[in-house]
């Protein structure tokens, strides 16, 4: 079905925004961690998964309503990220290949741990009635929940931008990003900055996971589906917040438009080919971090 009528095509563009927001919220935690700390966090998918399981656990044991589960999963997964950073990542900052391996090990441990505690069967997260319908505005139709994801993504991006560009902490983070030793010589506690940004990135992944648990499914392996997209967004974007936003927007829209014109499988193939070609000509990504050589 390749008719290019205006109404369905416009609907595909609107859907592209939703897909972009899903990929962006999955990638934002990774952007912060990679952009600031330089760690390639292979356990990022599992942080997402932990967020979903936190929501499930809080809901099934305490009966917490879904909207409260979101900040709760931020806090819980941020704590987990903090423990992992203090316990393991901290010792490996100068060894990027070893962090790759170590975080891969962490991801396996987290996956199996969740499996042992909760079991392999899929879990169910309840949401308020209102999230089970859709909104129609003229030609465009989108489910209420997708709009919620879009809204939450926008809020998170705005909050992160405010944090990084309008607060003293954000200034410290940017200084450490550009040159860790120089920033430390100015009296900035670089270790504390790294620790906080890692926890922050993990917490944001937790929020994403809670949302994805409702949109799709809660399984111990759910993170693996999102980690590839997240890495793509970060790499194409170049590691900065602005870059990730632009990359997610571009790839999300392209995926939706290609899927509208052909089919989902071919759309994904085409998108990946374009990404490879793009990286060939611009390996640093769209908006790369301006910093000294690492």
């Amino acid at each position: 079905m390749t008719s290019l009528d205006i109404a369905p095509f416009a609907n595909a563009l609107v859907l592209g925004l939703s897909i972009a927001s899903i990929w962006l919220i999955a990638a934002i935690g990774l952007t912060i961690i990679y952009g600031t700390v330089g760690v390639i966090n292979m356990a990022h998918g599992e942080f997402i998964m932990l967020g979903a399981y936190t929501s499930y656990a809080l809901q099934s044991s305490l009966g917490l309503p879904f909207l409260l589960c979101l900040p709760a999963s931020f806090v819980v997964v941020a704590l987990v990220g903090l423990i992992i950073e203090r316990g393991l990542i901290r010792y490996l900052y100068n060894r990027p290949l070893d962090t790759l391996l170590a975080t891969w090990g962490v991801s396996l441990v987290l996956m199996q741990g969740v499996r042992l505690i909760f079991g392999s069967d899929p879990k169910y997260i309840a949401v308020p009635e209102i999230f089970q319908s859709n909104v129609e505005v003229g030609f465009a139709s989108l489910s209420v929940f997708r709009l919620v994801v879009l809204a939450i993504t926008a809020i998170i991006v705005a909050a992160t931008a405010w944090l990084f560009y309008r607060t003293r902490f954000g200034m410290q983070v940017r200084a450490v990003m550009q040159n860790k030793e120089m920033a430390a010589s100015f009296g900035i506690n670089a270790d504390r900055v790294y620790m906080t940004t890692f926890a922050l990135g993990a917490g944001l992944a937790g929020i994403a996971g809670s949302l994805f648990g409702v949109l799709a499914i809660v399984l111990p392996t759910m993170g693996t589906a999102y980690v590839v997209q997240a890495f793509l967004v970060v790499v194409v974007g170049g590691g900065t917040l602005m870059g990730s936003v632009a990359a997610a927007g571009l790839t999300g829209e392209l995926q939706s438009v290609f899927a509208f014109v052909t089919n989902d499988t071919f759309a994904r193939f085409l998108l990946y080919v374009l990404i490879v070609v793009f990286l060939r000509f611009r390996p640093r990504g769209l908006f790369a971090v301006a910093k000294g050589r690492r």
Partner: protein
Amino acid sequence: MDLTRRKLLKQSSLAAAAIAAPHLWLPTASKAWGATLKKGEPIKVGLLFSLSGQLAVPEEDSTLVMQYAIDEINKNGGVAGHPIQPVIVDAKSDFNVYSEKAKELIIREKVIALFGCYTSASRKAILPVVMSQNSLLYYPTCYEGAECTQNTICTGPLANQHSKDLIPYMVKNFGKKVFFVGSNYVWPKESNKNAKIWLQEAGGELVGEEYIPLGSSEFGPVLGKIRDAKPNFIFSTVVGASDIAFHKQFKQEGFKVDSMPIASLTTGEIETKAMGPEFGAGHFLSAPYFQSLDNPTNQKFVENFLKSKYGKNGSTHYNMEETYLSAYVFKAGLEAAIKKTGNVEDVTSRMIRDVSGGVRVEDDISPEGLIWIDGDNFNSWLKPKIGQCQADGSFKIVSEAKEHVAPDPYSIYPNAGKCTAAGLVAPDGKSRKNVI
């Protein structure tokens, strides 16, 4: 130390001799391959299912119900006085692991039979090793047919035993226009080929056909296309975790199940529990078994299974029940083979397969009622049923076949010939073995 030609030749010939030596010295070494049964020792069978990964959703229950069935059989005296011992492996939803574990079970563990697989892709991955080692695979799931092997027995429905009933029922009750959605691999594509023919026979019209990557949970674009095409119902062959995401997003995007239900061959009780009954209610499934089947054998099965230590997932569904049946088909086949040879040590995997034609599981053991194994193509004769998911997650039977339906693996390929026990016999009389 420098390597001269003389040294190289001497060392490599010594190494070759060392490797070849055991096969010369030990006369039994050449008989080491292949499964053997010993009198008085437990009978080893392999359970090759995924206990982790996205396929664990349907497959973990298969392992659990096999263990339950084996315990039940052993409690009743085993097979000819021998207990059955399961060797359990985790295929991790990875096709490479399936074929590696199949080799391990057949060659190293020397199991007499394998119970395994769910997706057709995993079955096709292990069939080469099953066939080359002349072993025996019990495949307990619905599949697309188009195979004629001499080493498998299947207890799940073929396309002409579920979609052939489902498509006309949906056309009659909801309308002619249908949209096909499936996961992107062999079973949905073949099932849709079959379904297109039944659709034409029922007078229906195909308004769209989309395949999404296996494991993907993004259904926005597909639902957009469905919205444009305005079908009367959707025929879904989406499997695994994607299936749950599909039903959730279907309702979230505003589609109404009463006017456009999803009819599938796989969305059963566990999937409905995982997505929540509010997302599953109103959709249709064609399968030979539902947890709500109203007969004394099923009521006893459901009660005892859920009470046992294997019933932790809380429901019984068609895939699990078909696996349960395969355990009893194995028992009957093995008993027949032992009776035929008179000595348990002479029984081979292939022998069990050959005598299993016509084996019955009566309705005092089978929760879905009497089934029996076809003597030509070794699939099952069963009664297809159609159920609609209710608001509490259980299924109400809305249609049931009056007679058992014969399995026909080549129902839409009449020119391929007829599958018999000896091989696939083409119309010109030529017979071929191991057709997959």
